[in-house]
């Protein structure tokens, strides 16, 4: 029998303890992510700052109709249902695609996701007469969805999109197009600047705080419609740190928990201090994209080939501490569309010199060219040292390269406007150095090789126009037979390599460094990464 006095004393002691334990809030798990951009990418729907920005303020806050499976690392991902559960091309008219939309999805602001929202978002970026048209977002995504001709709502859960021509590769364009909430835009007085700080999408994260140029707080959306992809961390803080050394410093000092692209020279230190380095095969290539417009020094095929033979790619891989793969073409050798190009990319200085001599360039009469490059940033790898090395390599074959160095976002402007534009040709810029995503046939091949994608209709920057390739690409779009597609895609790749369309240097492996506090992170074989996989 327990004396009452002892009993209630115990209880008195126990009560606060139990209250404390039960009342103690579940401590919020926070991951701080040092990103390589110079500023937080746009949060209004379509991120700026490149493909690498979609993982931060694109696929976190929003969803596309067709998504890319980014939470798998062991194999390349594929197209999976996003806000559209099904998509079919019309049997009679192959230009019409019908999308069945997902039911029961709500935007962060509580409004329902229905077909109206899809049409509204398409108008937002394609119809400049619509009140919600946002020039900024349109500029970002338009080049990525060049096939869309028109669209209409069929009923609340069905939408039809018509393409300009029959295009079997059209679905690959859709992971880039994101769906934002029309109701939110209405509520905030039709002001996109306000939407930037209070965005509303359907995605696995909500935006809690935005301090321009310094941080953005993504918090878990516990009510996300895809229960297999609920975020494992409560809060992810994005911190822009464009300088790679500073970024590495921040990780080493514990100011952040994860960073992307640490400088290779810091790797030994990171490994020594027990940080984890994660890399993966990444569909990416680091090239010089040549202008083949009249007046450009690169119109001569011999020169383009010479350049591809003058660079010691193994040395560059060494510079990158092994975090890159030598390029043999636009695609990695393991790609099903690599084919058997006749032109073999390797380091062969005598052959390069011979070609240059044939083209009429000597030490006394060098070729002079201006190339626009970035200071750094996502996909650009170790921009300045790599470019300096190439500059030296090309000097060996009588090519004098001058650089125009700009910030990455500025580089994208030059990219979208094409080689013929005032901002490029007008300033004597005849080649652009920009890391390219090569994840799918459109992204890897057709967008660079088809004449129909010359600016302003796409990103065939150099103005490459080869009738045989144009033909093949049109056929690829028209055929829904994957075997036939593969044959044609292989042909296109072989042509690109044989025509030395670009100087291909290396493929990136997109390294990330993480502190031991990060328990889980799945790195996909893509520039899209799924931040819901980050677990602390």
């Amino acid at each position, binding site marked *: 029998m327990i004396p009452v006095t002892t009993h209630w004393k115990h209880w008195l002691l126990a009560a606060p303890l139990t209250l404390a334990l039960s009342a103690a809030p579940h401590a919020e798990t926070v991951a701080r992510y040092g990103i390589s951009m*110079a*500023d937080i990418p746009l949060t209004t729907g379509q991120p700026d700052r490149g493909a690498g920005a979609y993982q931060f303020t694109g696929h976190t806050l929003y969803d596309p109709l067709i998504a890319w499976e980014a939470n798998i690392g062991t194999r390349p991902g594929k197209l999976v249902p996003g806000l559209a559960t099904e998509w079919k091309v019309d049997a009679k008219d192959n230009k019409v695609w019908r999308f069945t939309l997902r039911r029961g999805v709500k935007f962060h602001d509580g409004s329902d996701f229905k077909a109206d929202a899809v049409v509204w978002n398409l108008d937002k970026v394609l119809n*400049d007469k619509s009140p919600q048209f946002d*020039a*900024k977002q349109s*500029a970002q995504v338009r080049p990525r969805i060049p096939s869309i001709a028109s669209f209409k709502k069929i009923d609340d859960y069905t939408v039809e999109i018509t393409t300009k021509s029959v295009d079997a590769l059209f679905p690959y364009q859709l992971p880039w197009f994101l769906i934002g909430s029309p109701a939110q835009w209405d509520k905030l007085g039709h002001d996109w*600047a306000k939407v930037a700080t209070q965005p509303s999408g359907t995605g696995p994260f909500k935006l809690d705080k935005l*301090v*321009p*140029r*310094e*941080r953005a707080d993504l918090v878990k959306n516990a009510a996300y419609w895809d229960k297999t992809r609920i975020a494992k961390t409560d809060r992810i803080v994005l*911190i822009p*740190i464009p*300088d790679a050394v*500073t970024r590495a*410093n*921040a990780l*080493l*000092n514990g*100011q952040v928990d994860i960073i992307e692209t640490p400088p290779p020279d810091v790797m030994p230190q990171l490994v020594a201090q027990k940080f984890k380095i994660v890399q993966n095969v990444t569909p990416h290539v680091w090239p010089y994209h040549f202008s083949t417009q009249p007046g450009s020094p690169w119109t001569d095929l011999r020169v383009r080939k010479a350049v591809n033979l003058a660079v010691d790619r193994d040395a560059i891989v060494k510079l990158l501490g092994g975090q890159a793969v030598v390029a043999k073409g636009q695609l990695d050798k393991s790609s099903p569309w690599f084919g058997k190009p006749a032109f073999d990319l390797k380091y062969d200085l005598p052959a390069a010199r011979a070609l240059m001599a044939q083209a009429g360039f000597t030490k006394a009469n060098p070729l002079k060219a201006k190339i626009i490059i970035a*200071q750094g940033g996502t996909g650009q790898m170790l921009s300045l040292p790599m470019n300096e090395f190439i500059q030296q390599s090309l000097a060996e074959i009588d090519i004098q390269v001058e650089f125009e*160095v*700009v*910030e990455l*976002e*500025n580089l994208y*402007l030059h990219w*979208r*406007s094409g080689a013929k534009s*005032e*901002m490029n040709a*007008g*300033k004597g810029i005849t080649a652009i150095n920009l890391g390219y995503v090569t994840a799918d046939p459109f992204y890897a091949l057709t967008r660079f090789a088809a004449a129909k994608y010359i600016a302003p209709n796409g990103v065939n920057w150099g103005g490459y126009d080869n009738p045989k390739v144009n033909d093949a690409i049109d056929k690829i779009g028209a055929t829904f037979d994957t075997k036939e597609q593969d044959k044609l895609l292989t042909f296109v790749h072989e042509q690109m390599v044989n025509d030395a369309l670009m100087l291909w240097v290396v493929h990136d492996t997109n390294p990330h460094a993480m502190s031991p506090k990060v328990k889980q992170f799945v790195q996909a074989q893509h520039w899209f990464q799924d931040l819901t996989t980050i677990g602390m």
Partner: protein
Amino acid sequence: MLAYLFKRLLYTLPIALGVTLVSFTLVYLAPGDPLNAIAPADAPADVIETLKATYGLDRPMPVRYALWLTRALHGDLGASIATGRSVASEVLSAAGNTLLLAAVAAVAGVGIGCVLGALAGYHAGGWVDRIASAVSVVGVSVPHYWLGLVLTIVFSVKLGWLPAMGAGPGGSGEWLWDADHLSCLILPAATLSVIPMGIITRTVRALVADTVNQEFVVALRARGLSSAAVFRHVAKNAAPTVLAVAGLQVGYLMGGSILVETVFAWPGTGFLLNTAIFQRDIPLLQGIILVLCLFFVALNLLVDLAQPLLDPRIRRA
């Protein structure tokens, strides 16, 4: 006194106006069409028309300047072409961070400089003097961006005591005077303080050495006045000049912080300036220059006005 105040103000106005003129002309320094300097390349036709009208690009130069100035006086410095945000708001929030850094660096630099300079001047010719002089020469000769790098190597990379970047966990929006934030401030402020320290040490040393040897001080000493009292006299004589130099140093630090801020990624006006330059964001560039220089002009004015208060003998022409 009032007349003096009025005269100084009158004098400052044309300088301020001149500063605005120089900031305005920066757009036209950039090679190429000024329209490219202010409009985003992707801008649709109607945005370009609006910009043309707002900046008066199809009107003569003086009109353009007048339009720009009127808007600037109303606080509208245009929109950054990289982000679309208002230049005024970006510059002002960044300026807050730089002011914090500059103020701390100035206090540290001037403080140490005064102490070192006074010691050196008092014991002119002795070993204290030599050490202080050496320190001050180092202070004005060292490239501060290099010093920042060296300090980062020692304290951040090798010892791991202090963070190497940023303004604290919350970013600039949430400055608190706590350990986390202060640890981010230490290295950049120490680096920046080296410049005023060098100059102040020299100035104070010269003044103190001069004053100490002047007849009235010798006379005071002869009459048996204590060292402390002598020191007070010396300080009073030296104060106006030190104040002038110190005040100007704060201005120089505010204006010249770009190098240190770049090394430490401190989110101030210098860092913003760096970003604006590489993004070819001319409106942002103009806005930063304008705000910083007007601040410097105002500071000069304040210093000029404060001097006669401290020493009635001073009347600058």
